[in-house]
């Protein structure tokens, strides 16, 4: 649509308030990074010489190998699983569709700790293997150690593949069935359809999913620490903690952030000329083919493998450990307190994150030329949680002191720490960290609503806000719900920011778990670990229910370019 058309002009003029709000949101997200940059500027003599000579050669290579490995595993598992449940009809498919999401409920640090135990030479698996082979002691026979790069890649892959599965499945589901039919009529086999039609068309979704999985990988410190893989994130930690060099750590963190942002931009640029989308409303989706019962069982079994490895096995393990612990020490009263804190913090953070996500996604719709607000708002997801937490600490610490001093001076009372003392700092950090999920998911939902509806509503006299309330909100409900559930689960699992920023006497399941794990008493943490998984399962199940329509697609499966495509 030409920019000079009256309707476009109308959108532009009246969307100013939304735009201003989106600008403020972007600023709020960017602030912690400004704080970090200021810290980095304090300088760190000798840091880069040391990095270049001793750290980068290994840590950078290890990080690249880890990312490549996790990318490959999540892409393969996620895409294959998505294709399996959309292209074929077999008994149990519906259940499998939802079950494939379950590993989302297992944080990376928990899967590492569970498998370290399960696969340890004195764990159940190797015990059984030795028993079968007739060996007495692990000194006679044992399997290779899980503490390795390969182990880390596999474990992370099995809990992170849903990030690829969700948007890819949504994309497969909405792919026009007529294209697939056309390809089939032209004599292409079912398998070739996947490689030559479905996969290329789903590429943006796969790419976004992999990007999310890789950012989760970069965020991880716990699993890497358990498994002895030295990533750049671990190097940030070492520089900060062991060498007490926060400016240096901030420099590495910002460099890493630049690389991530650069890679994401590169991927977008690489498919800049590819147009996707089209109007999906009228297309019927792909019809799954029925398969013979025997083949159906095989497909179901194949589909269940990632669920078993990424969820069922660790969950059973945790349940057994928690049960043992319960018999040994029974339940402590603090678990209830922790449950309340975990849920309250996650709920508040989700509410704020979704509200801001709506704001920024709708502003981007009103004024597509300001899409960079949207991109700024995703910065927090591209940085490890600790990095965001330190940035937030720098910003809110100063704010708290200013407020306290001002109150003392003008009113004569001390306010204490308004943000850090109230838990608001935790909510802020979680919002910065997960706004990308919310804004991206909502934007994807909005992009499915044709602009003609906006125009119609506006012609009928609605303001942008009215249009938003009466048209967009109802039509993108599922996308919003899906985003909210994902954000909630991420907040429940989040550790570093919650740990650093929470007020006195506030423990969550994640901080309790860490408190025990940090001194090596994992078994005492098993109840908290199980609770994290249990609290996360419910939203994940709901997520599978929210279903197709909203294209849980989540997370920005369809990005900005899609909107532009739809418009032309």
């Amino acid at each position, binding site marked *: 649509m030409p920019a000079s058309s009256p309707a476009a002009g109308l959108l532009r003029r009246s969307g100013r308030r939304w735009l201003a709000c989106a600008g403020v949101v972007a600023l709020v997200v960017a602030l912690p990074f400004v704080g970090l940059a200021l810290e980095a500027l304090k300088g760190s003599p000798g840091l880069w010489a040391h990095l270049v000579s*001793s750290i980068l050669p*290994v840590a950078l290579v*290890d990080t690249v190998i880890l990312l490549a490995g996790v990318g490959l595993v999540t892409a393969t598992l996620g895409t294959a699983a998505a294709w399996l449940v959309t292209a074929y009809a077999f008994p149990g498919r519906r259940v499998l569709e939802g079950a494939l999401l379950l590993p989302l409920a297992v944080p990376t640090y928990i899967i590492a700790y569970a498998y370290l135990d399960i696969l*340890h*030479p*004195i764990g159940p698996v190797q015990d059984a293997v030795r028993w079968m082979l007739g060996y007495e002691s692990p*000194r*006679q026979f044992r399997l290779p*150690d899980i*503490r*390795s790069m390969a182990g880390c890649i596999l474990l992370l892959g099995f809990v992170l593949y849903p990030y690829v599965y969700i948007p890819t499945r949504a994309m497969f589901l909405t792919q026009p069935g007529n294209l697939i039919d056309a390809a089939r009529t032209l004599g292409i086999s079912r398998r070739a359809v996947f490689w030559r039609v479905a996969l290329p068309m789903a590429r943006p979704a796969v790419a976004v999913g992999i990007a999310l999985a890789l950012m989760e990988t970069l965020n991880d410190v716990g699993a890497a620490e358990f*498994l*002895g893989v*030295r990533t750049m994130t671990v190097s940030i*930690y*070492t520089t900060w*903690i*062991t*060498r007490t060099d*926060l400016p240096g750590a901030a420099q590495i963190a910002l460099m890493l952030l630049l690389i991530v942002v650069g890679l994401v931009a590169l991927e977008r640029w690489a498919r800049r000329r590819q147009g996707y989308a089209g109007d999906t409303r009228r297309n019927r989706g792909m019809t799954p083919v029925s398969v013979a019962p025997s083949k159906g069982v095989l497909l179901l079994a194949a589909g269940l493998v990632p669920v078993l490895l990424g969820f069922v096995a660790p969950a059973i393990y945790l349940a057994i450990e928690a049960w043992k*612990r319960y018999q*040994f020490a029974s339940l402590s009263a603090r678990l209830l307190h922790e449950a309340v*804190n975990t849920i*309250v913090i996650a709920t*508040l953070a989700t*509410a*704020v994150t979704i*509200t801001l996500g709506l704001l920024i996604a709708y502003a981007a719709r009103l004024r597509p030329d300001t899409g960079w607000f949207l991109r700024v708002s995703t910065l927090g997801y591209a940085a490890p949680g*600790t990095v965001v937490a*330190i940035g937030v*600490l*720098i910003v*809110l*610490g*100063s704010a*708290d*002191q200013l407020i*306290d*001093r001002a109150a003392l001076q003008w009113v004569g009372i001390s306010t*204490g*720490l308004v943000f*850090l*003392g*109230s*838990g608001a700092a935790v909510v802020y950090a979680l919002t910065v960290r997960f706004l990308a999920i919310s804004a991206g998911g909502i934007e994807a939902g909005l992009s499915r609503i044709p602009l003609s509806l906006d125009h119609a509503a506006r012609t009928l006299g609605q303001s942008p806000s009215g249009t938003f309330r009466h048209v967009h909100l109802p039509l993108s409900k599922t996308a919003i719900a899906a985003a909210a559930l994902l954000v909630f689960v991420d907040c429940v699992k989040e550790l570093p920011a919650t*740990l*650093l920023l*929470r*007020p*006195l*006497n*506030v*423990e969550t399941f994640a*901080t309790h778990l860490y*408190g025990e794990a*940090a*001194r*090596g*008493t994992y*078994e005492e943490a098993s109840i908290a670990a199980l609770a994290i998984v249990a609290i996360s399962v419910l939203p994940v199940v709901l997520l599978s229910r929210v279903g197709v329509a909203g294209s849980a697609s989540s997370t920005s499966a369809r990005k900005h370019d899609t909107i532009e495509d739809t418009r032309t």
Partner: protein
Amino acid sequence: MHAHSFLTATAVAALLALSPSTSVAADLNVYTTREPALIAPLLEAFTAATGTKVNTVFLKDGLAERVASEGESSPADILMTVDAGNLVDLAERGVTQAVDSDVLTAAVPAQLRDAKGHWFGLSMRGRVLYAAKDLDLTTFHYEDLADPKYKGKVCIRSGQHPYNTALFADYIAHHGAVETEAWLSGVKNNLARKAAGGDRDVAKDILGGICDIGIANTYYVGLMTSGKGGEEQAKWVQAIKVVLPTFKDGGTQVNISGAAVAKHAPNKAEALKLLEYLVSDDAQKIYAQANYEYPVKAGVAVDPIIAAFGPLTIDKTPLSEIVGHRKEASALVDKVGFDN
């Protein structure tokens, strides 16, 4: 929008419910990197003895940054942490204040506290050798860890962990950086697995046949042996014996846990009372019996499990000198690729 104001109201209410009353007088606020379960018995005993309620927040990394960012508005009274290096860092960042207490100076030996009174050691732990029980080994030197005869037999946690950098820093104090680098390379070559995990994994991995010897802290043995860690850990620890290693020209490397009064402590009097309580015979006994640490105060008995290791000869290198070599040690760990 109604939804908005409802959300705001809920948010405010929930945050209020979440936030503890930090400004109530006669409470004491403790920021700690010591895990809650370790200090809870001590703080409960203090509350029982004095009636002062203690609020805590457990912060693993970033305690110094948090207090520094909060500045004058910080509610923190006491900062508690492990590792002398961390205590020195707190003092150097200017988030602590000097206190003058005869009780503290009398109870804590001079080498275990800051000369100006900014921090005080409260308990000690040795960095010792766990060895497979059937191994014919009764004495051990840290220098031996690099002996090629232990190739593929050594387990240890990340070289960058403060417990290890402190040990390596002590090595630098004894032998200089050049020799330490060669020694670290030797230890690295002897590793049976990645330098990762925690100290208890050393016992578990010895039982699992992955390694024969490893370096870990003393108190874990108490926790595992006593059954406090559950049945499985009791099994792990049965696979090992503890040898107190020494430097060839020195003693066993010892680190401390300690505490400091925060610079802007709102309840300084109570803070001092807690510090003095922590060096009382009662509290020192809890450190020894509940946590299996070595008390800093002379005359307080160590737990029998720990006493069974034999007499502890503390290495003579002053803590301040170890702390001074810490960054160098950390850089050497990277240089030899200890954790790779």
